[in-house]
């Protein structure tokens, strides 16, 4: 099981094993980076933050109690770091290239053409969700987190996780409808 081996790595990291740290980093850093990047929307900031996240893992490994999956614990740390960074730089400038990748909202001819492709429109709609909605959608769909795990990462009750996911999907339908795609739901 992936979870068990992550826990073994954390135990070794707690004892100062740098190789275990390398393995853990290699295994998780891309997903942690993408999670952070979707929140802060700046590649350089996201890169800086993941080294901070993993440094916290190095420092706090001895305190990890195994109540949740290691990846859930790391995403909690990552979220906290990302939100703190956003608070420090509320007017943070978006990296233009990243912004284009993340949020392709420009209604130029290419985009108009892409709109004929339902999948592309859906991706565009996903990018238009608020941070709060995008976060829960990413955690559920991309990071494969259960209701309980999302609740732990975001720090909200499980019932709220389900409600937030419902409203995120509802908003998605609304955006799609504006783009001419009626899903007949909700």
């Amino acid at each position: 099981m992936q979870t068990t081996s992550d826990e073994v790595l954390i135990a070794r990291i707690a004892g100062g094993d740098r190789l275990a740290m390398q393995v853990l980093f290699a295994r998780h850093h891309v997903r942690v980076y993408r999670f952070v990047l979707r929140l802060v929307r700046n590649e350089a900031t996201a890169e800086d933050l993941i080294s901070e996240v993993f440094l916290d893992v190095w420092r706090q490994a001895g305190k990890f109690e195994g109540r949740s999956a290691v990846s859930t614990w790391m995403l909690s740390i990552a979220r906290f770091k990302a939100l703190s960074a956003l608070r420090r730089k509320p007017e943070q400038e978006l990296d233009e290239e990243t912004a284009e990748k993340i949020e392709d909202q420009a209604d130029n001819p290419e985009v108009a053409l892409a709109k004929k492709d339902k999948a592309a429109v859906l991706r565009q709609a996903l990018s238009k969700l608020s941070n709060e909605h995008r976060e829960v959608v990413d955690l559920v769909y991309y990071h494969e987190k259960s209701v309980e795990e999302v609740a732990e990462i975001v720090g909200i009750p499980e019932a709220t996780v389900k409600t937030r996911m419902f409203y995120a999907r509802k908003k998605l339908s609304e955006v799609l409808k504006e783009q001419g795609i009626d899903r007949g739901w909700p």
Partner: protein
Amino acid sequence: MNTKNKETEHDEIENLLPWHAAGTLGRRDAQRVEEALANDPELARRFEMVREELGETILLNETLGAPSGRAMEKLFAKIDAEPARKQAMSFNLTTRVAGFFSSLSPRTLAYAGSAAVLAILLQAGIIATVMMKETKTSGYETASAPTTAPGVGAFTLIRFAPQASSDDITKFLEANRLQVAAGPMAGGLYKVRIGMAGLPKSEIETIVKKLQQDKVVGFIANVE
């Protein structure tokens, strides 16, 4: 069951669809959803919508790319600056290698295998350069060779064959008197010490050629 209860049950099931699509529901809830889907065509249609969202969310995230090597360099520079910590219990090489490979899930091994095939050709050169730099600096400490400076000796880069078991790898390392000095790195590569002292290039090439014949070795490259 009265109408209100049925509605509540229906709403509850519908709220679980995203997690069912992602495969993260418990067995009991998954079974409830499966039964509802089998008996409710409208719910099944909505589930298809959820599956589309799932697929496009994954695609969207995958297009975000990955961080540069700077992130790892920065992390280990910070770790280097941390106060020294008591080392983990030392294991002998056999135990550590066997333990490490047995701790990987089949899915992880499969990912590592397929990703390595694509990544290795592009990254081997870069990694070799990094390794050369590493041998000149302090390098990362590894528990596999606690009594030997990590940069001392003759090395190769090896990616083990995906089908090789931990036993195969352990026997291979022992039979050839090899030590894992670092890894796994990008592309599933390991830096393996083939000699305690530096060796002439011709001798390294002979050793690499011999090791290459072993079925455990998926890829091997010189580290000059």
